[in-house]
């Protein structure tokens, strides 16, 4: 409703400006032109990669045969990848999915729980604890990366997918974000449930959680994407090929096929596309999540 009012008033003032300057149509044509040009620049690397993945090797390397669209459309690159016994793709998808989903489960649970506690309860040292959690947001991961690796080494969890899960129970940003949302839950609602004899865990699970579910889902999507795309930490922790996640597999695979660009592009399409498809379906939530992280973080 509000948005509609804004649009109509914008349209009205727009037309007022147009009457005065008379250049409104040409200006909006320029704006659309620039925006479409921007879209083309944004999409070209994807399109170029996708097209290359369907080209034959000869077509890619021979300047005389090189065109933007594939001349001889081929699925050879994909067939090579799917039939490569040294590249059990399903396993790597499963690895990435395991790491990403475990972290989503852990972080959505702990962030909502502690967001709730920091929003709605009073206890000693609450301020100190919360200030510390906020302070950890400022500390770059590279600083604690070496000791974190040494801890994993001590417990022999390097080279183990659990190493990417076992040490990260909490997400400072998530706790902070969820606390913001929890503050808007009316205390009367919680007190009413307490009077009815509900336990605190029941209140959290049955009353608080449903209230913040959309925000929590947005946060969950964010955690999923960042874990799915993570590179540096998995690169350090996972050394054996069979426990690796997709981004490290992509560089490993490409290092072994440096001369075959078509193959490399097909591999990167296979690894990049799943998350893009997820994004296109959930784009509203994804964008909102990133916007929140920028404004609040």
């Amino acid at each position, binding site marked *: 409703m509000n948005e509609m009012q804004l649009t109509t008033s914008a349209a009205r003032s727009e037309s007022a400006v147009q009457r005065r300057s008379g250049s409104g149509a040409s200006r909006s044509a320029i704006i659309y032109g620039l925006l479409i040009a921007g879209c083309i620049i944004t999409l070209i690397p*994807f399109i170029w990669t996708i097209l290359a993945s369907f080209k034959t090797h000869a077509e890619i*390397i021979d300047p005389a045969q090189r065109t933007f669209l594939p001349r001889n459309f081929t699925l050879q690159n994909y067939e090579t990848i799917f039939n490569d016994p040294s590249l059990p793709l399903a396993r790597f998808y499963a690895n990435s999915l395991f790491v990403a989903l475990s972290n989503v489960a852990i972080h959505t649970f702990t962030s909502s729980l502690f967001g709730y506690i920091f929003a709605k309860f009073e206890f000693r040292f609450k301020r100190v604890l919360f200030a510390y959690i906020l302070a950890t947001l400022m500390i770059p991961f590279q600083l604690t990366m070496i000791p974190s690796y040494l801890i994993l*080494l001590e417990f022999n969890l390097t080279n183990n997918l659990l190493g990417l899960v076992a040490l990260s129970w909490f997400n400072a940003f998530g706790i902070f974000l969820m606390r913001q949302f929890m503050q808007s839950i009316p205390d009367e609602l919680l007190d009413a449930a307490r009077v009815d004899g509900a336990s605190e865990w029941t209140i959290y699970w049955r009353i608080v959680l449903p209230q913040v579910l959309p925000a929590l889902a947005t946060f969950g999507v964010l955690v999923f994407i960042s874990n799915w795309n993570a590179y540096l930490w998995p690169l350090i922790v996972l050394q054996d090929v069979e426990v690796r996640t997709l981004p490290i597999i992509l560089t490993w695979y490409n290092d072994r096929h440096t001369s075959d660009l078509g193959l490399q592009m097909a591999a990167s399409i296979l690894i990049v596309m799943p998350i893009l498809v997820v994004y296109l379906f959930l784009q509203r939530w994804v964008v909102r999540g990133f916007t929140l992280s920028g404004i609040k973080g």
Partner: protein
Amino acid sequence: MENIDLQAFTLYWLVIWAVLGSAITPLIFDHRHRSPWQGALLGLVIGVISGQLFGRLILTLLLPVLPAAATWLSMLGGLVLLLPFWWLIKPASQISPRHNGFVAGTITPLTFYLLLLSVLPLAWAILLAFFDYSPRRVGGPVLGLGGENPFVGLQYFQTMITGEGRDGLIFQNSLRNTLVFTALVLPLNMLITIPLAAMIESVHRFFKAIFRTIYFLPVVTSSVGVAVMWGYIYNTQYGLLNDVLGNFGITPIGWLQDPRANILGIPAALLAVVVAYLWQDFGYNLVIFIAALQNIPDSLKEAARVDGASPVQVFRYITLPLLRPTIMVTSILTVISSFQVFDLIQVMTQGGPGRIGLTRVLVLDIYENAFRFEKMGWAASISLAMFLVVALLTVVQTRVLRTRWEY
């Protein structure tokens, strides 16, 4: 016993029983009118001891008999002492008002975690910066420091400042590259995203959604994927860029390989990485600016328009000043993230070309020193220095871009 990974199990037992012990005990204490915080601490200690002791015992005893179930049953070690403890704890003689076992039962595991896996690594990282440390050497009793991993004092920081030796030279080069990278990324990013956001904001709502969706695609793309795609575009013989330039008669340029190629004195490889980084990253600031523009009251812009301001004037004198708080946040975030650039560079150039590495950045230096050359003390001191530089830059940006008004 050999094929069982005892060290990893030690961690599992620790985690499970620290959490369960300190989460459940306060609820029971609360129920019996005792202090839940006391319960949480007791539960933590008893749970950890019992989990370690009986976990190990169960595993050793059962492994020869029931190899499949032994590992799982060993996870129950904490119950051996906790169950009798929970059972035996007496209700307090005088009925005190009920405290909140829920808070004690959740905050205690959180504090335990923060101490063990956040405060400790942080302190450890700072300590490492003063030791010549490698995980392969036998060190002293505390965190492996001392012994064959000797204390070196401020030597690393001296090396960084003087740039002595190979390490110092490479560090200063990495710092310079990182600063140049950031100095290029920040203004270019702002110059792209702010006008683009204003343009997107001005188009019809239907197209706005489409443009935003497309512009955001690179942000969710894995940076390794981005690096591979752009590596192909920059490819000297087969890349799209040289093909296009070839049409204008420009001879192929070794964008990522040729150490001599440069534009206005800036190495071509560094520029190539900057462009790829901008391409991947601009959608992030873009959506933040779009959200910020939506929050600016339309009445302000309209008032200026009624007063006869042109669209460019409205943008310059109304929109831009009102965006200042958002510009502060985005520029801080952009500096922090571009200081941490690693994925693109590690995949596209490995820090090359050239002998000292024209695209070698700080995180790459940290990574290689820590995990390839196992000079973890040196790597830790670089990461500490990096943290200090970023913190300093953040303070400066906050000062420069701070506003004292609201709308």
